[in-house]
């Protein structure tokens, strides 16, 4: 199972700044290993954020996103106690979902 994400939120009035740090190799499929063999592409290609179960943002990613990616975005109308969940799926079909409660 993939490693846990780190999700942090900072409420600013009605808005919340959400930072998400994911652990992923994000191999492009272009690099070669020490033996000269191509390292197969392995990257997150679907990414989604939900607020209390409702999708508020979704994205399709590609190989150009960095290893261990960090995303940061602003959500409107966020209250204390709201649940923010992030999920991703990579091109091998592995998924990970983590949730945080806005404090």
């Amino acid at each position, binding site marked *: 199972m993939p*490693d846990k994400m*780190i999700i942090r*939120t*900072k409420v600013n009035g009605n808005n919340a*700044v959400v*930072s998400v*740090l994911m652990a992923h190799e994000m191999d492009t499929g272009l690099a070669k290993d020490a033996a000269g063999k191509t390292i197969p592409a392995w990257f997150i290609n679907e990414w989604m954020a939900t607020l209390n179960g409702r999708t508020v943002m979704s994205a399709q990613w590609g190989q150009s996103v960095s290893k*261990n990616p*960090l995303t940061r975005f602003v959500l409107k109308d966020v209250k204390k106690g709201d649940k923010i969940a992030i999920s991703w799926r990579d091109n091998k079909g592995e998924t990970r979902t983590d949730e945080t409660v806005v404090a």
Partner: protein
Amino acid sequence: MTPSRLVRHAACLLLGALSLQAQAQAQADTNEVANPAELWELRGEDVWNTPAGPKSASLQACDLGLGAGVVKGAFVQLPRYFADTQRVQDLESRLLTCLQNLQGFNAAEIAATPFGKGEQIKMQGLVAYVSGQSRGMTFALPQAHAAERLMYAAGKNIFYFRGGPYDFSCASCHADSGKRIRMQQLPNLTERDGAAFGFGGWPAYRVSNGQMWGMQQRLNDCFRQQRFPYPGYASEATIALGVYLGVTAQGGVSVAPAPKR
């Protein structure tokens, strides 16, 4: 200076002051994730608490110098003398002792494993976790034991020892303030702030290759860059250097595990 230039000058100064303030605020704000090393801190915490090895035990009873199982604050007092092993140990050589005594691994075997392979992968998480538990604390390495003072003197000698095909020493690059290689600032490791920045920043996440490096890997890389022979993982030479740098950094603040170039 004409009045209009004076106004512009003052405005620039003000802007400069504002951006510095904003930077300080951003750094103080713990609600923002900006350091991938935290991913290794989580992994390391798992490794610390999960039973493993031939003895199927966790590392929770590991004594890092402040008593069995005490992690918080241990990092800023390492390397130090340990009575049970009768030698000065840094974080990684001490972890090797715990891996052998508590979990039944062969310490020499792990030390001989290349970085980033086998049990060495665990080490990356462990050093991030242990150093992260002392984030923001000031370095206070003990120097009461004769062995600790001896290691300091040995480390200082190694720091200034010139040799190899390029006639290099650590001091060639790290004994003056304001030096750099291209755009990379070189910390002056002979004074407190420089040593705290250089020594207190490792273990670190290297942004350029996405790897977590412990102090042992960093120091061994210093020797490689000087075209010196490989001193070896947890060797006395690297521990002595750690004592010298750590004692020089005394009073400086630890930011490890830090993000580095």
